[in-house]
């Protein structure tokens, strides 16, 4: 792992297109500003990994049996559908 020392307000550049700036350091909390192209997803790692695990657990087969859900007894909201207009 590459380890760099940076001061508040300093940045690093990754691949010429991703800028990571140390915005502020408060005690043990570091505020980081990230500028990246929209095709580069940026996530907090723990949330990313939680959703990743959930996706892996959810992967199934198209013909897998599904549980029955109790559909609400209330009438579904109605609205006219104006197709093609």
């Amino acid at each position, binding site marked *: 792992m590459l380890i760099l020392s940076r001061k508040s307000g300093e940045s690093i550049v990754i691949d010429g297109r991703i800028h990571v700036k140390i915005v502020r350091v408060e005690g043990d909390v570091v505020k980081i500003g990230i500028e990246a192209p929209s095709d580069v997803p940026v996530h907090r790692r723990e949330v990313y990994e939680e959703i990743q695990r959930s*996706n892996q657990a959810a992967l199934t087969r*198209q013909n897998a049996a599904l549980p029955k*859900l109790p559909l609400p007894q209330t009438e579904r909201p109605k609205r006219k559908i104006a197709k093609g207009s």
Partner: protein
Amino acid sequence: MNSANVIEIEELETTEPIACCDVRMPAGLLGFEHIKDFLLIAKPAEAPFRWLQVKNNPSLAFVVIEPLFFVPDYRPDIPDADVDFLGLTSPDDAAVYNIVTVHGPRRATVNLKGPVVINRNTGVAKQVVIANAVEYSVQHPLPVNEAA
């Protein structure tokens, strides 16, 4: 809640037996970033569930659901960067689906932190980590019929 979602369910139950459309996910799903092309498949008998199936590979699929009936107070906050990425210009452009984990015939949970947001007009979609993810669970239980 987005009323456009409700309309789609009504259409499904009354018209085509199987509705299917292409969904393009340029960033894939988290943990499955290499898979970009999916089909969104709806079978009336399985409503309100739908399938997000890997295109050309029916053995890889995810069960999805629109959360409106089961989590009526669900308010996913979609970050501006994702709104731009998806090219959404109004809330009606977006169809929101949440991935379901089927744990067995009596237990299913739904991931509310990372909904799949689809631009209805373009078919472009993304699994979005919502800005208010901390308020929601990745394993929110769905009410399953005890008699099932």
